[in-house]
């Protein structure tokens, strides 16, 4: 994963609450076996509307998504994160996120910046008025800045550290392989195993 320290780009205001991962990318678009090419499914149901914000020319090339409350709820599909990244988004700013979506974003390198809904409202107004204005999201200082605008955002310390360092979770865990070995040695014998397979007889 690439390290993330700071990103500057234009933003897209998505004035909707409860945008679940089925809205971010519907199930029919989840059939690829790669991590690329999911941008065609991003907000697919709304894309056919020419007035949908993603279709508006003033927001073309936006890399920061300003989302409403409860963004990314529902299904665990990491494809939702990939679709946003494949489209070009680097940061999602919002007030409340689905847990699994937020976790998936951290693993995949999409920055989730949490601010109060009041700040979201201000950002929506600001971006609608100045769609071409660059916005900087600085992970080092946890700051969102634009001309005449500044706000601090929240992110947990551990995710921030991993993103800043660009660390791979599996590599980090494998540093503690001795702990895993030790745990496994003391595990109860009655816990189930899937192999060898046992199946019920047919009545």
């Amino acid at each position, binding site marked *: 994963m690439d390290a993330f320290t700071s990103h500057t780009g234009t933003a897209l205001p998505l004035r909707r609450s409860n945008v679940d991962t089925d809205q971010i990318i519907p199930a029919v678009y989840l059939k690829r076996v790669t991590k690329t090419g999911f941008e065609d499914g991003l907000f697919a149901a709304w894309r056919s509307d020419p007035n949908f914000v993603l279709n508006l020319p003033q927001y073309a090339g936006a890399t920061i998504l300003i989302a409403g409350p409860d963004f990314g709820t529902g299904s665990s599909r990491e494809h939702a994160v990939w679709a946003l990244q494949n489209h070009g988004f680097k940061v999602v700013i919002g007030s409340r996120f689905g847990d699994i979506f937020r976790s998936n974003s951290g693993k995949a390198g999409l920055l989730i910046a949490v601010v109060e809904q009041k700040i979201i409202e201000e950002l929506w107004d600001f971006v609608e008025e100045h769609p071409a204005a660059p916005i900087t999201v600085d992970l080092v200082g946890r700051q969102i800045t634009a001309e005449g605008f500044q706000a601090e955002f929240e992110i947990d310390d551990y995710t921030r550290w991993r993103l800043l360092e660009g660390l791979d979770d599996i590599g980090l865990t494998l540093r503690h392989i001795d702990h*895993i070995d030790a745990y496994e040695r003391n595990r109860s014998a009655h816990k189930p195993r899937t192999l060898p397979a046992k199946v019920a007889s047919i009545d």
Partner: protein
Amino acid sequence: MGQTLSEKVWDDHVVRTAEGEPDLLFIDLHLVHEVTSPQAFDGLRQAGRPVRRPELTLATEDHNTPTLNIDLPIADPVSRTQVETLRKNAQEFGIRIHSLGDLDQGIVHIIGPQLGLTQPGLTVVCGDSHTSTHGAFGAIAFGIGTSEVEHVLATQTLPQARPKTMAVNVNGELPVGVTAKDIVLALIAKVGTGGGQGYIVEYRGSTIEALSMEGRMTICNMSIEWGAKAGMIAPDEITFAYLKGRPHAPEGADWAAAVTYWKTLHSDPDAVFDAEVDLDAGQLTPFVTWGTNPGQGVPLGAEVPDPEIFAEESDRTAAQKALEYMALKPGQKMRDISVDTVFLGSCTNGRIEDLRAAAGVIKGHHVADQVRMLVVPGSARVRLQAESEGLDVIFKEAGAEWRAAGCSMCLGMNPDQLAPGERAASTSNRNFEGRQGKGGRTHLVSPLVAAATAVTGTLSSPSDLIGSR
């Protein structure tokens, strides 16, 4: 101070803990399906890593699988590729797989319990948000993303921040015709879709204790729909009786040792939860959704609400958008809403008890002329069991379609989808826009309401059928 159930199970699985870092948790059971795993196996291949514990891993095909002509190759080439990719990965990495056509194939959350692999006190994960289902056995079970699937495959562990604890106290006797599904829909309407965020929830109280394992699974299944990390229910004699004799349940001395351990898995009397919610089951009636998230629900006897009644502006806007999408008007009686399709199935309500309940309602009636009803058992075994009890005949005689097992119309990855504008009563878990097909409109209901609705053609409960047989 005593511990809660979730704290006990969590502590039993901590491999490593360090200041400022999430706990590293051992994972006892990893369930895998075709949609959220291919990129994880690719990652292992690229890094040259094996699956650390294939014998704690189980794969099945459920999301893409057709429910008709399952002996033929999957018609959609992209779906077929995804399923074939899982088969190749399972073979390459030495993982047990139950493929389409196999007796133990089915929805991943139905087959884990059915095989006796889901047990109290385990940690269970799957690249699927409805993994919370397995919490009904007193396990910590939660959905994960594909990066985490790869992490579990490689290390059999997951770094996880310790969640807060919440008790949902459900007490009182359920009125006739009110089911586990109605409990959880009423709960979500009360607390909202974000109400459980950051919590492992324990469902407890006399109503929960009286539920069958199937009912408990229905409730835990929908924990994610109100944002909870996981939902759990303390194991008891009902749990043990369900497990006894299942293929992977402990046997002999192991059974005794397991039960001794399982009996310790309950919240201590002096345990303190970070939050508590109370629900009076005696006051519940059948519950149905009117909107496009599972929290937008009302009693079946109520009316479509006016968006203006919501205090928060975001809720008002969401309600307005939902009514527009659902083509409903404030004040319309829920019972007057007519449907085109009834879907009975899914990891929420596709177990044998659900099929029995629906068959009991529909027996001797006929599905309304303009309505199609799909009955999709949750697993191939549920299908066989239902057929051995003659339930398939009851459904077919009533004019319903009797299908093969899988996720089917719950999310419409296979051909079972709603057409644009089509309206469904569905026993599944999500009424999101387009979830069951682009432009499709979903009302979440219990199996009893689904069956009664199929007969009348409008949202109904079994009591509406009295005298009409």
